[in-house]
């Protein structure tokens, strides 16, 4: 890994006795798109605010481009920030909003006008420059905020749940737009969200936060497919958790005994026999019917079938567990009450820390 562009070194932030961020270490490379994912109160927004300079760390250091910034006031940090509710200035036109950072930098009028135009064209709002923010739709306002945060070519762009107020369709469009911009301009983007789908779609890396700490950081596929903790497994996507005890383990595999007595094979680090563990299996990794070994095979009763359009969700009672299974529409739909077998591969089933 190259030298980190942004790094947090043992950064803590507490309000009174409450630790919002707890001894955080985090390194981000230039040009990276990092999402901070977590439930509200997990400290992800506070980290963003500390990076932007609106909050001061209680302890620890923050570096950007090799320079320690945590004593720098926000207006000297040269970071573009996109706020949750856009934070557009209602008394200024779209062009004035976008021109604001340039005006603050005392850029000559002609140059500024050119930049404003380019920035607005980039977000396809070139024709709206004379309107007031209140005359724009939510998505358009969001794009103005984006243009405003990018027009002064900041080194880092921070986004605090920028798409939270948009409807689903628009949100998805904007996700693609932002990713496209990121690639085109080579920006370093730190993106705070509580929407795991958004984080998975857009990021180079995702940091999952819980109680002021990073639970897991990694590529979207690592986070989704190989959650290391139960919290990550449950927070990112849907999952089935099965409790059991290690019977034996080694070579990245483990045999786990379930309370019912049956055993399953799963991917796992080396663990002592007798350790209580949880197994995480994604619903879409479970197939109906018996598969060829090596596979774990369970049988159970269909309790409910939920229609989702492109797929069905089955609710199964099996071995004292309730399991979610995603059923392909290509397969004939089972009916409630029907007994059936299903299977999953040991690679798709992960032992996670309790």
């Amino acid at each position: 890994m190259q030298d980190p562009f942004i790094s947090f070194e043992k950064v803590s932030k507490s309000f009174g006795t409450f630790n919002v961020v707890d001894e955080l270490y985090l390194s981000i490379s230039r040009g990276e798109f990092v999402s901070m994912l977590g439930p509200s109160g997990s400290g992800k927004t506070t980290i963003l605010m500390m990076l932007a300079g609106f909050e001061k760390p209680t302890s620890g250091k923050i570096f950007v481009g090799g320079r320690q910034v945590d004593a720098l006031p926000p207006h000297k940090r040269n970071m573009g920030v996109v706020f949750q509710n856009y934070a557009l200035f209602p008394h200024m036109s779209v062009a004035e909003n976008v021109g604001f950072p340039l005006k603050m930098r005392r850029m000559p009028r002609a140059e500024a006008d050119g930049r404003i135009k380019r920035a607005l064209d980039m977000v396809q709002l070139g024709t709206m420059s004379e309107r007031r923010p209140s005359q724009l739709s939510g998505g358009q306002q969001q794009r103005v905020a984006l243009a405003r945060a990018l027009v002064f070519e900041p080194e880092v762009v921070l986004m605090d749940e920028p798409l939270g107020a948009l409807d689903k369709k628009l949100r998805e469009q904007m996700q693609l737009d932002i990713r496209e911009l990121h690639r085109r301009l080579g920006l370093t983007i730190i993106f705070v969200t509580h929407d795991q789908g958004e984080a998975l779609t857009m990021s180079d890396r995702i940091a999952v936060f819980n109680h002021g700490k990073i639970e897991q950081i990694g590529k979207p596929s690592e986070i989704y497919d190989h959650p290391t903790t139960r919290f990550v497994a449950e927070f990112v996507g849907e999952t089935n958790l099965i409790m059991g005890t290690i019977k034996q383990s080694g070579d990245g595999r483990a045999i786990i005994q379930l309370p019912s007595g049956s055993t399953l094979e799963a991917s796992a680090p080396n663990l002592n026999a007798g350790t209580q563990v949880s197994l995480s299996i994604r619903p879409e990794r479970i197939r109906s019917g018996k598969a060829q070994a090596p596979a774990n095979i369970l049988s159970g009763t269909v309790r409910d079938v939920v229609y989702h359009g492109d797929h069905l969700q089955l609710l199964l009672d099996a071995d004292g567990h309730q399991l979610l299974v995603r059923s392909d529409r290509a397969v004939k739909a089972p009916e409630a009450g029907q007994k059936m077998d299903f299977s999953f591969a040991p690679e798709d089933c992960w032992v996670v820390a309790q």
Partner: protein
Amino acid sequence: MKDDRKRSWLVSLALVAPLVLFLVFFFAAPLYTMVSAAISDPIGARALPHTSAIIERWDGTSPPSPEMQTAFAEDLRAIDDDQLFGDLVRRLNSAKSGFRTLMPKTRNAVKADPAANDLVAIDERWSDPAFWQPVKTATASTITDRNLLAAVDLERSTAGDIQEMPEGSSANRATLIRTFVVSLSVTLACLLIGLPYAMIAASVDGWKRQLLLGAVLLPLWTSLLVRTAAWFILLQDNGLINSSLTALGLINSPLPLIFNRAGVIIAMTHVLLPFMVLPIFSVLIGIPKNLMPAAASLGAPPLRAFWNVLLPMSTRGIVSGSLLVFMSALGYYITPALIGGARDQMISSVIAYYATGAANWGMAGALGLVLLVATLILYTVYLRLSGEEQAKR
């Protein structure tokens, strides 16, 4: 279908009826009364019909003719209504001092003797044309510009031309200008204190905000006299402020803080501050919390962020606060009277004198009207200026 529409129209009419009645009773009617009191002058013509017809031909300077005196005596005999007579006396006396005593004396004399038509014999003063001129003007027309002119220190000469009143006889214009100057000063003082105050109050929360708002509302809950007495204790020569400044060695002789303009502005600012703070505060708390951080993140240092974002966005509160303070300040007169000096009298105290002291409703109405018109002109100028400001953007 048509009936439905008519019905709903009637329903909405019924719903706004209380509002319309309210406006008529408390806005239109008083305004109408004020205007008509200022310009109507029906007493002379009503009480002195004969005199009115004859005095028309009088040139205004020659000695009063016997016909005029006879007509006047007949009119006086014919007045049965004491209140009408009282109004007539007041009307004439406000144009020329002396009628208050002259009229009852004359009336009693002509009533006692139906043949007594030589008024000069009853009282010397009737030989003076100066006492007949008011009679002529009072009976000439039922509307008059006399009060309106007097409200701005003007009068009509005997020839009917508008001219300045003799110097030193009236100071309404000076008082009016002073009223505006004092009100403007108070508005400015309120703005200078109220804007940062409201910003602080809007930026804190919980008990601190309650405390700040409570403190600014306090003067509204205390009685005027208690407040004035408190200012007296604070501002007088050996009062709290002066004695502590002297004790600190900052001043050698007491600052003149009371019985002058400074005292008036301090005391009025104190009372009117809530009218500035509250509108600004309510606009400020409506401004999204993230705009100032947004400005900072875009590179605006705190002062520029304030100037470019917070200030323009609180304009609405500042404008309504300033208007509220200015308009209320225009009507203040008790505080200036008690705390001010000789040159701090406001126009409202003159209006109050005419209304309750002298029962001269015409002058009271005229001064009120002049005040209203001057205020409206200022307001229009202000609107024009702020409109241009908007257009420039």
